[in-house]
């Protein structure tokens, strides 16, 4: 065991403490925050490196061995997601240094951001069901603070909706964990996996349903996603990108861990239901996106829709489905966060998120248009961008399993995704600015924003052109699941 395994929690937590202490000295706080993010990133790289050579970091805290103590176990799936978490944290903090919708600089903003990272890191690392719940709570409380930090009335309204609906999920999760513990006597993933086959089919269906419902609320799946589009658009852009990238994905990860690993193979009826829920999530998410004109709302609904794709991969199960899940998740986090950040840059240049009130960006900043096309087309799934490989894996598996309805729906949703990305492109970039007297802002501080978005786009391009590395990693990760 190495101390590294605790890094996904300890490094961000230490940063929370230090940034809180430094909250009266903004410059120092920012430096501490960056250093913390970079250390987290370095630790995450080390974790992935050791997971990739089949030596996953794992430890039982206090040396109380599993199943008695709490275990952290960073297999390939967990390590990859921790790495992407650390990366998104660093990128968001970088973007925060620009003036593109970064929100008011509250002294407690940075501690709360690192608190989110600690919660997400813990959730991806733990191998204990109740401990997972604790990290969900950490995320929830930090998210709440970040919603309220701007202090606008719509933000307070959003934070209340976020709180109530997520508390419902948290409550259900607690009930479900209690029921699981009552039925099996265990909380450790490994011990649960051993105890699961002894459960009667009806009981395991019931327990999994309760667990999955709680996780699906967190993941933002149909019909439990109302909190997401109701709240996300009120966040300042860098925090929004972080949330959009990470929070729902923790829910999806928990679903994968539950039905794809710990309780695998899950009862057919559960997987069948999950598949249809995923299909509905894809469809209604993208319809919501087609309806809206505010870029943030459009993109928020696309989170929902893409969650549907990832859940579909989970529902397809097996090695191919699980590999697709991991690949899709990593691709999607990068692309979706980037789109939100680029939308914030558009806001800075044109003064609005509302597509009806902006335009003329292609003439002003053709490079921004090019930058936008990378994640936008990737989201649609235009080859050879990363989203294409993700969708190809899902479609291949769906068709191979004879799930024609799901595959057809996935293709139809892709058309609608294309429609709404084309909408953003035509309205924000191609169209003239509706106000003839509109002048682009004279002085902007967008250099950090450019660095952050270009970095993410470069990452997308690397995954796009050399998908083999991530694909092979995801396939190896899938082989270790459920065994």
């Amino acid at each position: 065991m190495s101390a590294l395994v605790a890094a996904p929690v300890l490094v961000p937590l230490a940063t929370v403490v230090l940034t809180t202490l430094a909250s009266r000295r903004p410059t120092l706080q920012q430096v501490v925050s960056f250093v913390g993010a970079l250390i987290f990133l370095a630790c995450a790289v080390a974790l992935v490196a050791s997971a990739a050579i089949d030596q996953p970091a794992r430890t039982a805290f206090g040396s109380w061995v599993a199943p008695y103590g709490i275990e952290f176990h960073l297999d390939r799936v967990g390590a990859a997601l921790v790495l992407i978490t650390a990366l998104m944290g660093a990128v968001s903090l970088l973007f925060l240094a620009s003036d593109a919708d970064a929100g008011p600089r509250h002294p407690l903003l940075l501690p709360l951001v690192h608190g989110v990272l600690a919660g997400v890191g813990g959730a991806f690392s733990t191998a204990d069901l109740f401990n997972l719940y604790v990290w969900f709570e950490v995320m929830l409380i930090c998210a709440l603070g970040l919603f309220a930090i701007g202090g606008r009335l719509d933000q307070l309204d959003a934070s209340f909706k976020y709180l109530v609906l997520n508390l419902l999920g948290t409550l259900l999760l607690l009930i479900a964990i209690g029921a699981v513990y009552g039925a099996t006597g265990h909380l450790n993933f490994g011990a649960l996996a051993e105890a699961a086959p002894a459960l009667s089919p009806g009981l395991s269906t019931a327990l999994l349903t309760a667990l999955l419902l709680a996780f699906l609320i967190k993941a933002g799946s149909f019909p439990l996603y109302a909190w997401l589009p109701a709240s996300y658009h009120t966040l300042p852009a860098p925090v929004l990108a972080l949330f959009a990238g990470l929070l729902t994905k923790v829910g999806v990860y928990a679903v994968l861990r539950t039905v794809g690993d710990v309780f695998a193979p899950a009862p057919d009826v559960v997987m069948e239901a999950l598949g249809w829920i995923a299909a509905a999530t894809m469809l209604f998410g993208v319809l919501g996106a087609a309806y809206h004109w505010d870029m943030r709302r459009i993109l928020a609904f696309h989170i929902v829709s893409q969650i549907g794709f990832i859940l579909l991969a989970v529902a397809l199960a097996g090695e191919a489905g699980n590999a697709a899940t991991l690949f899709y998740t990593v691709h999607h986090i990068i692309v979706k966060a980037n789109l939100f950040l680029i939308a914030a840059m558009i806001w800075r240049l044109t003064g609005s998120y509302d597509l009806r009130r902006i335009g003329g960006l292609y003439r002003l900043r053709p490079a921004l248009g090019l930058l936008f096309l990378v994640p936008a087309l990737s989201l649609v799934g235009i080859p050879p961008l990363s989203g294409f490989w993700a969708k190809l894996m899902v479609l291949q598996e769906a068709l191979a399993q004879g799930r024609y309805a799901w595959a057809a729906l996935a293709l139809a949703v892709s058309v609608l995704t294309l429609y709404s990305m084309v909408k953003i492109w035509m309205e924000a970039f191609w169209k003239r600015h509706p106000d003839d007297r509109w002048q682009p802002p004279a002085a902007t501080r967008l250099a950090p924003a450019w660095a952050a978005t270009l970095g993410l786009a470069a990452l997308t391009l690397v995954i796009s052109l050399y998908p083999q590395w991530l694909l092979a990693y995801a396939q190896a990760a899938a082989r270790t699941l459920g065994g």
Partner: protein
Amino acid sequence: MAAVTEDRRGGLGWVERGLFTALPTLALGLVVWKLALLELPLSVSWSWVPALGIDLAFRVDGLSALMLLMITGVGTAVFVYAGGYLAGHPGLRRLYVLLSLFMLAMIGCVTADHLVVLFMFWEATSVLSFLLVGFDHERTDSRKSAQQALMITGTGGLALLGGFIMLGQASGTYVISEIVDVLPSLAATPELTAALVLILIGAFTKSAQFPFHFWLPNAMAAPTPVSAYLHSATMVKLGVYLLARLDPGFGEWPLWEWGLKGAGSITAAWGMVLALRERDLKRILAWSTVATLGTLVTLVGLRGEGATVAVGTLLLAHALYKAPLFFVAGNIDHGTGTRVIDHLGNLRHAMPWTAAAALLAGASMAGMPLSFGYVVKDVILEAKSAGDVFAFAKAANTVFGAVAVAVAGVAAVRVFWRHPGVNETCEAHEGGPALVAPPLLLALAGITLGTFPFFAQELIAGATGAMTPDAEAVAFSLALEFGPALLSLLATFAVGVVVYLLWDPLHARFERAARRVGRIGMAAQFERALSWIPRSAAASTRALQTGRLPAYVALAAGTIVIALAAALVADWPSLYWPSADGWPGGGPVGACALIVFGAVAAVLQRDRLVLLLAAGLVGYGSGLLFLFTGAPDVAYTQFTVETVFVIVVASVLLALNRQHRAAGLAEPLWRPGAFMLAVGFGAAVTALLLVATAGSFDTALSQFFAERSVPDAYGRNVVNVILVDFRALDTLGEITVVLLSLIAAVPLLQALRPARDKGDGA
């Protein structure tokens, strides 16, 4: 003036224009050089994504070679022409970059030997076409046309992807040359049939076949070089190319054969008829392109090698006459400022070179002897008389041939030689050499091949060999023949001339009829489908995302209840329920009764303070329950927490009361929906917990904690040891939550104050 291109070089100098133009020229040289030196087929393959079995596999056979020559040859002409046509335009560099990328994508498409690689380049052409059609992006109709083209070819592309995956899975490989070999031996499973249909949809959207034909004329919003390149010579032929590529595999399938012949014939006839509706020269040419594509698709569907010879020759001939005619239309637009044929006439004086090019290209299009078009007509006639052509295809071909003559007449004769007096633009003028040379040279190439058809013999033979499974069966010779074909051509020609002479009255009559068709036509259907997206999106989103929190909670809670109930019912017989004799004694039951009483009382209260106290009973009840189930210290903690909570909140409420801000709850006491939801939720959760705890509990953990607490953890209170040692990490997490909630509360409290003061808070 616009004509003096040298004066208006604008942002792009000669050097850069030359460099860009060198790209297709070099590619053309390379293709010709390699074709002369090397034996076809060439293939090369690099490993790309072994995890998914995807190789960058390329293969050049006769068909690819023909396409390559067209792509690079017409490409060279287009690049030269674009430099003249958009000289001085600030977007010329963007156009060149996009055109270069487009040419690369086309080359990739026609050489790819792997379905996924082909699809990648296929989608690239769609996206680039979107960017090129929307070149004048500040014009609304440009944007609309670009969107239409992308939505249709993009949808078709996704259908194609589905088809490709199913085809690959059915035949066990994604390598196209292997698939074509394997396909004839495969049984016609439903999967393979579905794959076929999806691939047909993909190809038909790309090649503007009925019922997806309407996007192509609208794409004429693009600058003329783009129209000539994408929408006549190359991209729209991709569908035909794909069909021809897969024809050796699918050829024997009736669905394939009849699908191609049916859609192709309808498109050929309908496209020509619609050409009559137009007054814009470019749109007239676009409809005739649609019709030609229909003819090509029909020919691919026909059996027999004669048909494949016809496909090869028509592909080449069309590129050699239609691209110059588009250039001519562009020159007219450039020189007169309009493309509407009513305003044009007698342009031969002002634009002699363009007129010459138009005449040469028009002759080929009309199929006059000594043009390559004539050779094509000859070959097609042979193919049709040899194949078992159904009557409609014949009729369609006659309409196609006749109207082609008429369209050629309009483009080459009418605007240059006839129709005097209406010419409103008196300053009509010829363009520079960059505008004149490309159409002239391409049209001349068509005439040269028409006079000496054997020049094209080897090229067409190669393409035919690639499209025909058993290559030795192909024996033909392209030669100048004046046999029975001439007679039939004369008949077509005569009808064509009549149509040409009656163009205006036919148009008028047609316009009236077509207006009615317009409302039910495919373009209108597409618009309707497209507007369905925002409408259904609005309906579903307004229904689901009402903005009202109670609705959200009800939806979520309702879903939970229904899902849990369904899960419990799904496998009812395998569930164990707790036996009745194991029920707890009086103490726990009393505690539960207190909880229930507190909960019900809280629901019935309108006054916030009483409500709080009633809710406190729930907490005390829980504490009592802990006490009776053997956890006294947890119980004491619960009592303390509950007491502190009630006191704190009560004092806040009292303070608010003094400020008259704590109004009672205004909601009605009895809400049946909420009642049912609450009962359902309680019942579902209770049932879940009952079945979960019905079995014998695995006490491994609690035994371990009890046994090891004293010797290993040095603590006599097991609960405390669990909290601070066995599961200390949970406690760390919970402490973090408390700390972070304090941090989170600071901004929240700060936020509340100004928000309340400001009122709207914006």
